[in-house]
């Protein structure tokens, strides 16, 4: 199980990094989404993988699941969801405004004639 989870995180991270390096809005946003999925699973596993164990300490239980990473993941999911929405809106605005979805700086014309 550890191997499966670890390779899933690795695969998603690799694909995410590849897409992030594409320098166009849509692939980059997809790449960031993949990276956030990867990091959510990574955070989840930072409390170790345990199956079928209760997250709450009780007297008769010796093996339990760490509840804190689950709370951290919830926060991370909410934040990354909101951030992706903001990124999509700003990216859309930039695309509609300049009819171009490149992220890198283009050669820009000065606002006045006569460059030095």
């Amino acid at each position, binding site marked *: 199980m550890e191997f499966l989870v670890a390779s899933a995180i690795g695969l998603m991270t690799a694909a995410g990094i590849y897409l992030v390096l594409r320098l166009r809005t849509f692939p980059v946003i997809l790449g960031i989404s993949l990276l956030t999925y990867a990091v959510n699973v990574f955070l989840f596993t930072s409390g170790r993988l345990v199956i079928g164990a209760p997250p709450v300490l009780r007297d008769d239980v010796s093996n339990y699941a760490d509840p804190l990473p689950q709370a951290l993941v919830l926060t991370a999911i909410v934040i990354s969801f909101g951030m992706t929405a903001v990124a999509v809106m700003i990216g859309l605005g930039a695309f509609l405004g*300049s009819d171009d979805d490149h992220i890198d700086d283009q050669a820009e014309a000065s606002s006045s004639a006569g460059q*030095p």
Partner: protein
Amino acid sequence: MNHWIIAPVILPALLAPFIVLAARYHLGIQRVFSIAGIVALIAIAGGLAWQVSDGSVISYRLGDWAGPFGIVIVGDRLSTLMVLLTSVLALFVLLYAIGSGWDDRGRHFHALFQFQLMGILGAFLTGDLFNLFVFFEVLLIASYGLMIHAGGNARLRAGVQYVLFNLIGSTLFLFALGAIYAETGTLNMADLSERVALIDPSETVGIRLAAVLLLLVFAIKAALVPLHFWLPSSYAEAPAPVAALFAIMTKVGAYSIIRVYTMVFPPEVDVTSGLHDTWLLPFALVSVVVGMVGVLAARKLDRLVAFSVVGSMGMVVTAIALFSPIGIAAALYYIVHSTLAAAVLFMVSDLVRTGRGNVDLTPQPPMAGTHLTAGMFFVGAIAMTGLPPLSGFLGKLLVLDAAYDNTLMTWVWAVVLISSLISIVGFARAGSVVFWISHSIEPSEPRSAEVRQPSALAYSAVGGLFALLVAHTVFAGSVHAYTTKMAAQLFAPQAYISAVLDSPGKLSEPKEEN
């Protein structure tokens, strides 16, 4: 328990929704509440700074849960000074935004401004790494809104770069947090500093990885080369008051480096030796060079100022990277100075834009209000390049003095002194092209309607920041004595740790079976 320490987070958090919900269509009311809120913040921050100036540490437990299990807000000398600096800067930035009419060019400026303050102040006060992440996100999401305030294609494009770069930074932050939690089982900074020291020296791979990932995240925030690419275009395209407020945002990265790498991963801990204590200094020196060469190469005034911010952040991190009490003390003195100087220069660059319609470094006929603006640029440039008599000179002197015992001393001295000369040339050239040559050019056509004299309030906001810079110079002795005490407190974190961990808050005890 002293409840005032949470007020710098609560006050903007309550004020912002109030401004959106109740005063949505009344700019006058928004302005009044925004200013009143920040004046109250300054009073609270001053009180807190006075309270901890004797070396005590305020620890506030949310919900009264005992540390390290509950969430803690911690105020010591360093965090209260940063809170005070942020609120004072915010007051003048807000006055400038009102005086120049920037807050009227789009909607919700004041609400976003308050949310931005909430995030920055929370990041300075939190005692928990995960909450540091949360407050980073709060300040970032507000800054996305402020960055594209008033719209425009160039600004939106720069905004996309800024947002995407910071999203990747946030993801990296989460990876670092996951790695730290997996290795230590806690994210409370005081608890971490005890547990990292207990890690077995033979199994350090995970914690070293986590330390480097976390440093990368803070280096992105502090715009350290080679992670600075987001800064020049986003700061140059952001509205001027927003860019002036962003001057404190790079300092959040510097603050986090100071906090985490003196307390959690101090240089004397073996498990992370040979990482940040070796590699941070060369990158900081490269940042100084890149920033100052950028000053010389810039073709617009706002980009020139943005590159000078990269250079001054390099200077701050150079002083931090010495990881000695004297280095941290110099860094803290320079942080206050460079925040004020960068804010002044962003505002002056906007005064130029108001007075002549653009900020290109080309000879053009005299702008509206040229004398006062030129004088302000002159003083701001002196402060930023580190010429006497202003505090930039004293700050650089302190950094050089702190580097005196370091093995890389020749490199630090050479880079700082030569890059200062380059930046003086850059600023002098920009000043003479924009302000002096213009007097030999006859205006060929009547001024367009967009060009006007900047308002008196805008000038007085810049003047207020100048007064602070002068005070920072005149009282340099007492300020430096205080930052020295601050650095001593950072290198002896027992008081901080015991304030957080030995708190008598409630624990959930298992109930007795009856």
